């Protein structure tokens, strides 16, 4: 959020189970317009190769949400 306030493209990644908390938190802090990428839950317990795959996918999706070229 501090990055976004400073003009750096930034967004939030949350798993689906934490989406309501993330949305409420963004609104409560006046950052409701910040892009929110929701990924499948859970992330914990994923094997390292799975984490890597999902991280790459999330970065691509977040970049698209932010309109940032990759």
């Amino acid at each position, binding site marked *: 959020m501090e990055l976004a306030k400073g003009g750096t493209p930034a967004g939030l990644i949350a798993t689906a189970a*934490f989406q*309501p908390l993330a949305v409420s938190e963004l609104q409560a802090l006046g950052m409701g317009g910040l892009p929110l990428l929701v990924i499948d839950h859970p992330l914990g317990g994923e094997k390292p190769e799975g984490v890597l795959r999902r991280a790459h996918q999330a970065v691509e999706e977040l970049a698209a949400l932010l309109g940032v070229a990759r």
Partner: protein
Amino acid sequence: MTLRSEVLELPDSPDAVYQAFCERDWCDGLPIIPPTAERVEAMLATVAADPGESLGPMPPLWREATLEKLAVNAVMAGCLPEHFPVVVAAVEAMLDPAFNLYGVQATTHPVAPLLILNGPYARTIGMHGGSGCFGPGFRANATIGRAIRLIMLNVGGGWPGRHDMATHGSPAKFSYAIAENEAQNPWSPLHVELGFAPDQSVVTVFGGEAPHNVNDHVSTSASGILNTVSHTAATLGSNVKWYLSQSQLLVVLGPEHAATVAGDNFGKDDVKAFVFEHARLPLGTLKLGGMWGIQDWPRWMMAVTDDRALLPVVASPAEIYLIVAGGAGKHSAVVPNCTFSRAVSRPLSRLR
């Protein structure tokens, strides 16, 4: 006294009030005392401050914790007016950044703020630190602890499954408040150890799990009792020990155990040093699961390679809090913290 809260017109019936509050997600599931203006004003009359004064924004929804809102919830919880200064001091402590209330509210871990009251005011209001102090039967304990939870729900917005993401929660999330059993404490009480005067009344909030029982019916020495305490405190599944910079452990010695330990001329520092040295797990055990691989340890611990090396659960003996509470019997308790919150103490400075 000018109150600012919305006024709700409801039938003059306990059932109707309870139902209306439940429908609005304003209660913890248990019946409440209707927070009428008269009751709220009586609560506010016990503290020296304006009802509109805020102690700060309370996470996770960052709503202002005004004294009036705290008083409304204290009434709902069943507090007597003389309980309210304790509630206020506890909220002041919880809003200290070191306590990390956002983390305590939103985590998946079953943490609740344990409120420990020291000093003469505990005796004034009947805050109980003797037999069954963590359980039911004592109005000050039950209602002050419940008021804290209702404030966390209604002011902070920490609703289970939405903004409080605790996987299971905990019975300690209903109410978790005790006094220290100073009369049977062979050492200095917690608040004096922390630098407060003996005649001050002080609230300490500790972000802890529900108490873990320490059963030792056979030891007749300090080392025997404290070995059992230490063994109970070091388990692979506990949060404590993974983020060492924040990990704290509360040891609650029952008065009989405390007497045995003190009888061997152990001071509080000796107890803490012993538990620090013995509440440990081998590196090889820590590698089996828990948070292995994502731990945040000091450099010296990260460099350990011998699987037989015994590693502590907190960074130093100073991270072990020690109180005496409970009644007759050969039991004590350990309360691990959530490992991302530091205990904070506040005197009852607003007592009118």
